[in-house]
């Protein structure tokens, strides 16, 4: 299955590959070029609100959900810890770097606190992964959910490090190259660049030996162990890699909001990431970004839509919940799955020459 999945991922380009030596950028599908071009020139047509609130937030949630997609799609481990890892990275930025809460924040330079935040959050994610891989399937969900809730309650009660209920405010990105990175256009490009990097990293790792072995572990752990692969190490390493992605998302998130509080990584937020990844689709790395866009659009415009239909504007969660239920119920592999099935149905249509079904 792993091999079949790979062939599908590469698409027609992979089939054509043996014909002639091609440059790596020629193998990138046209759709990706088009999406990239549209996203690059988006600031020319879109307003500040769309850039900062809609797309910035989409990229951030997409990155965090991407880390879940990597674990769930390639590793077969549905982990609910990713938002917590992101939250921890955000907290570390606020604690190690400058913030409005001066009695706690250390105010170090950005080139110290950004790597340190990623490192600490990755360590945490790896530790949780080491615990979680002792279990399988639904147990993993339960254990990661329990740890995520413990983190939430801990940050809410601890004032010496996490500043309790209030959290941190005025956490802004460093003014690198004299640019205020929280302005809509720079922030849009910053988050776009991070999202593109993370996307590329996942695509690359999924085809690298490690990613292939991970998919083998997902499909048949016992056989991979018999082949001499260290199953547990592969799984834990997958958690580490996913934690790096999640912490990048977390740092962007704290910069976008300019604040962080326990609710940032609260249980609803943890569940939201799962909703985003599942609604988008867990099969391919683009799924989480689609899911995130749907989620962001819903959460931004649902109040307006609800008011037009005469409902209370704060019932937005209901819509998200019902949408999620519908997705799980009717299309377990998300929007991407719907798309794939549509394509498959089109391909199965009668042959135009003979009229016989293909």
């Amino acid at each position, binding site marked *: 299955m792993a091999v079949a999945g790979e062939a599908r991922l590469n698409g027609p380009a992979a089939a054509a590959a043996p014909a002639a030596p091609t440059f790596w950028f020629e193998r990138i599908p046209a759709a990706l070029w088009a999406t990239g071009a549209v996203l690059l020139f988006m600031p020319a047509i879109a307003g500040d609100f769309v850039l900062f609130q809609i797309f910035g937030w989409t990229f951030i949630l997409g990155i965090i959900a991407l880390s879940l997609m990597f674990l769930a799609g390639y590793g077969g481990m549905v982990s609910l810890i990713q938002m917590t890892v992101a939250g921890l990275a955000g907290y570390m930025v606020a604690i190690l770097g400058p913030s409005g809460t001066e009695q706690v924040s250390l105010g170090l330079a950005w080139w110290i606190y950004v790597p340190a935040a990623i490192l600490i959050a990755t360590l945490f994610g790896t530790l949780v992964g080491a*615990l979680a891989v002792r279990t399988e399937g*639904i147990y993993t969900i*339960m*254990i990661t959910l*329990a740890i995520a809730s413990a983190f939430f309650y801990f940050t809410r*009660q601890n004032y010496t490090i996490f500043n309790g209920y209030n959290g941190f405010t005025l956490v802004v990105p460093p003014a690198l190259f004299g640019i205020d990175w929280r302005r809509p256009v720079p922030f849009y490009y910053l988050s776009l660049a991070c999202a593109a990097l993370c996307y590329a990293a996942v695509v690359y790792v999924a085809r690298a030996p490690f990613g292939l072995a991970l998919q083998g572990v997902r499909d048949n752990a016992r056989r991979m162990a018999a082949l001499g692969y260290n199953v547990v190490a592969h799984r834990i390493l997958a958690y580490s890699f996913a934690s790096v992605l999640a912490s990048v998302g977390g740092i962007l998130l704290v910069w976008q909001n300019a604040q962080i509080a326990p609710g940032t990584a609260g249980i609803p937020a943890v569940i939201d990431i799962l909703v985003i990844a599942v609604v988008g689709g867990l099969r391919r790395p683009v799924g989480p970004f689609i899911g995130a866009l749907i989620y962001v659009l819903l959460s931004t415009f649902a109040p307006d839509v609800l008011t037009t239909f005469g409902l*209370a504007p704060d019932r937005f969660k*209901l819509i998200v919940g019902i949408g*999620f239920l519908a997705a799980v*119920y009717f299309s377990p592999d998300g929007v991407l799955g719907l798309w794939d099935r549509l394509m498959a149905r089109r391909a199965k249509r009668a042959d135009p020459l003979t009229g016989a079904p293909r």
Partner: protein
Amino acid sequence: MPSFVERRPLTSLFILVVVGVLAWLILAPWPPGVTAVMGPKRVFLAAVLSGITLGALYFLVASGFTLIFGLMRNVNLAHGSLYLLGGYLGFEIADRTGSWLLAFPVVFVLVALLGVVLQYAVFRRMEGEELRQTLVTIGLSIVIADLLLAIWGGRSYQILTPDFLAGPMELPLITAVRPSGEAVYLRYPRVRIWILIAAIAVGIGMWLVINRTRIGMLIRAGVDDREMLAASGLPVQLVFVLVFAFGAGLAGVAGIVGGTFQSLSPGEDTRFLLASLVVVIVGGMGSITGAALGALIVGLTEQIGLVYAPTYSVVFTFLLMAAVLAFRPQGLLGQRR
């Protein structure tokens, strides 16, 4: 039991010492040296009793959770929502009819009916797809939580304790000895003691049903091998529905109990879901005795931690869970499958 002692002499000794120390701390009047280290005995006793009664509440919630999991392999992450729904319904019934006791059967039946609907309409259609079932329960918990918020709002409710359970009662536990030689006994809320007794009764009842009756035999057989049971031509679906209804109803009733000695507000659903998760992870999946042991340990850890190290009490619960996972992944009383 003797076989366990023979197999694990060191573990048994450790458990014996821990239980012994706890029993001494609870029963004996404290010498001044202990009081100097741990504060007055009254505080410690109150923490222990709160832990035990909280454990009783956790047991009521978690036993349904673990039963459903053991039989249907369905991690019902909407279990906390059923708890909160039961609590709100119980509040309304107790408030309108003025009868606290009446709320119990009515809420049990109502929430159990919801459980039947869920099992028939949702979970039966995706049998065997554990992950999908779990995701559906997450979706359900989001929807139910928002509906509850829409109906009952964000404020916190407390169900009034009925008159015959109100006030404190004196327990035969010595907190201190007066200089005159007269012993001071602990006073503790009567309602909590009765909830503890009720939870123990429910636990014993469940144990008896599962181990001594025909339906219990079916349930145990289903936990061990669901496919074989179905292949034997027994009404597996009926057993599933009954167990789901019972587990859901129990969560609803626990909501009334929780609403009486704590409070009901949005967010309590996730708190109790988390508690159930930790309890069954510690105690062992699908085991009623495990749920009882886990609930007791988690309740005690939480309350004693809350008294002696308020900031880190959540961490203690978590550390407990991590330790169990690290050394005994199937839970204290769980069986490896």
